């Protein structure tokens, strides 16, 4: 499936936005203007953008936790002002400031960000079941990292999705790292997607630094899933340029990742790669690219202004207790 010029433009725009959102989050964490923790997605923005840009509003999405899902959510068209407000503990947050980073946007079928790695896998079976029963072509984009596939529930979900031919895309963002542990040590095969073979599930491996390549693969998988062909596994080979989360040392095993390693991975920075591509194939001019960047910066400024202008949420204990159960 080759991409139209329009599609490339949208992907490029979302990629630039996702990257700048990440830089904003990084900056705010360093400034002490973010609560909880932050797991930067620098170097790994392309998979989420490629996976989510062409989803429909009523498709289910589990955003990967890295970058706290913003690359995914902005690509799906979610207004993330209330996300940042949530992440700063404000009343206007999407979860009324109660959740730290456990955001949810049920109207966009982003039902939960769990603090338990791998806890997307169990409910994704239920989303797939509901989608199949309703038979309206809804798909489930289930994004998570290489590390999350160590969880037995990942294997259970793949087993059941294939048994029941559910429209679930197992979208693995393999950055080769899980905190300090490497996928090389923690997973016995070169590709995480080899797991799919055991369940008879089709799988593809794609260059996760190339947003256009990811989108092509995702579009094909989404189309197949909509037609009822069952689950698909997509593995993106990507990178994590930074430490796991801000404040944690940047180790592989128990030793620092080396400058040579960093230099090597940074050769393939996803925004640079995409910029070269859109200039070379004349999708965009430098002037258009600059304008996209400017617009993204302005958008982010507004998102920050919204969060900063909002009040800190400090509901009474009584009010909180009254919200443990639904009416």
């Amino acid at each position: 499936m080759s991409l139209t010029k329009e599609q490339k433009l949208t992907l490029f725009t979302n990629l630039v936005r996702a990257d700048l959102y990440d830089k904003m989050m990084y900056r705010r964490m360093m400034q002490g203007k973010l609560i909880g923790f932050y797991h930067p997605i620098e170097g790994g923005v392309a998979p989420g953008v490629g996976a989510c840009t062409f989803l429909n509003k009523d498709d289910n999405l589990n955003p990967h936790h890295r970058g706290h899902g913003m690359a995914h959510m902005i690509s799906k068209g979610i207004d993330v002002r209330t996300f940042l407000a949530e992440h700063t503990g404000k009343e206007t947050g999407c979860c009324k400031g109660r959740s730290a980073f456990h955001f949810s946007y049920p109207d966009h079928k982003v039902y939960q960000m769990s603090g338990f790695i791998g806890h997307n896998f169990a409910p994704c079976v239920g989303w797939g079941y509901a989608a199949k029963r309703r038979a309206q072509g809804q798909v489930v984009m289930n994004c998570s990292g290489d590390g999350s596939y160590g969880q037995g529930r990942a294997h259970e979900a793949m087993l059941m999705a294939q048994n029941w031919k559910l429209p679930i895309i197992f979208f693995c963002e393999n950055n080769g790292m899980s905190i300090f542990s490497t996928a090389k040590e923690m997973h016995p095969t070169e590709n995480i997607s080899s797991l799919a073979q055991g369940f008879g599930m089709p799988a593809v491996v794609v260059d996760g630094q190339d947003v256009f390549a990811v989108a092509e693969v995702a579009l094909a998988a989404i189309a197949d899933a909509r037609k009822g062909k069952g689950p698909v596994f997509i593995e993106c080979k990507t990178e994590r340029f930074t430490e796991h989360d801000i404040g944690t040392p940047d180790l592989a095993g128990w030793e620092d990742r080396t400058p040579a390693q960093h230099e090597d991975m940074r050769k393939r920075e996803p925004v640079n790669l995409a910029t070269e591509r859109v200039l070379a194939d004349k999708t965009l001019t430098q002037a258009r690219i600059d304008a996209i960047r400017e617009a993204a910066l302005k958008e982010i400024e507004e998102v920050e202004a919204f969060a900063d202008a909002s009040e800190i949420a400090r509901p009474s204990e009584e009010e909180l207790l009254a919200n443990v159960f639904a009416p």
Partner: protein
Amino acid sequence: MRTITLIGAIKEALAEEMRRDEDVFLVGQDVRGGIFPHTKGLIEEFGEERILDTPISESGMYGTAMGAAQEGMRPIVDFMFGGFSYVTFSECSVSTGQYHFLHGSQRSLPVVMTAGVGTGQRLANDHAMSIHGTFAHHPGIKVAMPSTPYDAKGLFKAAIRDNNPVMIPWHMGIMMLKGEVPEEDYMVPLGVADVKRQGSDVTVLANSVQLQNALKVADKLDGEISVEIIDPRSFVPFDMETLLTSLEKTNRLVVVDEDWESGGFASTISARVMEQGFDLLDAPVTRVCMPNMPVPGGYMEEYVAPNPDKIEAAIRNVCA
């Protein structure tokens, strides 16, 4: 009125609710074939789309229910034996209980969980443990347990129609207990206790099979000690008012619970009575619970678990 078994009453509730609402479905292991009688035969009426058997994948099985509930459906998940819920505990307890609250009350999670629990079958710990106290410990999940066929039908219907997650185990020791059950639609509201027997000397708070044991003991002591018996029916929410009203009359309390003594529901109730009803008490609250050992299998279960003899001794002691 006709009489049916407790397990038959559960089945009737499931079938009626599935008939009433297309979004209600059942997911479990070997429920199509009816591993326990309450699911047997449902497949014939509701088909494979709504009676789902999964592999031995408790997380995926529970996740089918959890995800579908997030999608607005009303799933019932059957763990077979209560201990098996622990295999997916982070999903069915932690994530489930926090769902509505943490996500800013945007969505509720109307999942019903059920499982057979309790002693009497000589199956030992992982197949015999109580789970209601553990679920009650985690905020955000309602917990109920029936002790009569009437309550079984009514509580299951209330649970299925509730907008919150509800864990409602049933005790294998009273699975075949018969009682009067109306054929029509009715609900037993969650959070309303039932005074099963009037008395004036001592209140016994007992649930499920132990409620049945307590009733036998009360009959035996009739004329000697007047025993009032309350069935909480639900643990979360708990009907404190009914208990305190009873204590105004009796001034003595025995809590019978098949869960372990340590950290169990009986401890919570004793503490609450201390805090809210200390002045009503003429004697310390007494508990009859599972001693703090893994539930043994074999024949020793009979004298280790709460039983009529232990309940009688506790009543005599608190009234002495």
